[in-house]
């Protein structure tokens, strides 16, 4: 339950960083804060991060259009699955292959 609330918070912030107009938010600053967000998430407990990663696709359904895709892809964009599989080389290779296939 807490994971869903935190995931909502993260999704809102992430959509702001990715979709806010350039006139209101410097693009390079947005990227910088996105990288910061990724660092924060990777430092989280692996179990909790797992819950967050699983929550993002669900939360994404609450959005529409471009924002929906952005929220759905949070885990992919921030390399969260790779962070969860950091100690599993086989899983990392599999994720890398999936990422290459996705382009």
């Amino acid at each position: 339950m807490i994971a869903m609330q935190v995931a909502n918070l993260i999704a809102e912030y992430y959509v702001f960083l990715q979709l806010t107009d350039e006139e209101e938010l410097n693009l390079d600053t947005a990227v910088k804060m996105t990288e910061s967000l990724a660092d924060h998430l990777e430092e989280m407990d692996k179990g909790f991060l797992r819950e967050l990663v699983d929550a993002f696709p669900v939360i994404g359904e609450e959005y529409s259009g471009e924002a929906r895709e952005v929220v759905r892809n949070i885990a992919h964009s921030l390399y969260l699955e790779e962070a969860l599989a950091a100690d599993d080389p086989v899983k990392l290779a599999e994720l890398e292959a999936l990422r290459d296939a996705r382009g």
Partner: protein
Amino acid sequence: MSESPHGRKPSAFSRWLRTGRLPPAVSPDGLELKFNPWHDPTDGRFTFAGAGRHYGTGEADTASGASSRTSARAGATPASVGRSKSQTATRSKPETSRTRPPASDAHRAVRPMSSPVQPRGIGGGRPGNEPNPVTEFVGGVGEGLHEVGRETVAGVRAALTTNPVTTVRNTGRGIAAMIDAAIAAEDTPARIQASRAASAVADASARDLGRATATVAGNVALTAAPAAALSKAAALRRLRMARPRTTFDPPQIGWVKETTRSRKPWKAYNDAATGAQPGLAPTLMRTMADGSKRPVKFDGIQGDYVIDRKWKVVDAPRARAQLLRQSKVLAEHRLIGMWEVPTPVQKAKALELLKKMNIANIHVKVAKP
């Protein structure tokens, strides 16, 4: 001076070598023979020195163009002086014409050089004093060739040496003008000069014939010259194309305030980039499609490398857009980007992303925090 004509040749030649003048010629009957080069071109009659046209010794053709040497003998009357006098002394006033032979030297028969029966520049009755036809012809050839080539040479010289800081463009223009003149010359003078030579050959001296021949020959040479001229023009064109190496202005690095605050290590890592300034971020100005300019922020700069430090590499939509933006602005400023990441894992992610985006002007290296 009783030498035979054959025996006198060596001494006459040596005198010519020493003085530039031939000894006075005498006819078999002892009369001095002189050559009057001045003729009236309309009827071929002899004229006073300085009037009519000067035929013969390679000097000016007309009275107006008479040289000093011609003027020096302007007063010479051919048959009015004896052999014992020097050449300077033989000069007399033009009044000593055919109508007034000198009475004081009556024992020397005066040959009427101004006689209307002598229209040619080279008379057949003056074997001792007439200029050597071969020498005169060769001299005329030289003059003709010189006249033909003079303008071309002058044009080239002016084009190449007028301005010590001769620009390639000016040189090309000068050569173009010279070639135009040469092409115009090759179109007309050969024909015109040939016709002139044909019309003038009737009363021309050997030097005149040589000059006319050389003029035609010189223009024929100009006809053959275009190949050489074009090769020169082509070389100059290459020279014009070989512009100096373009020099680029130093990168226009701007600095904008960096207001992001954080206690996390990513902030310290970004601020520690080479060339970074506290509280400021180096920027390059990106030209938008509408011509407006917008800054692209980086973290540092080192020489031609503009540094962007990334604590974590992400594959978010705006991260990809930033990658394209950085690549474009770096190309616009002819710079190279450098992503500095803290670990080899991040470097692998960065390289993978650059490969997907086909970015070649941004490099990646690991810079430990």
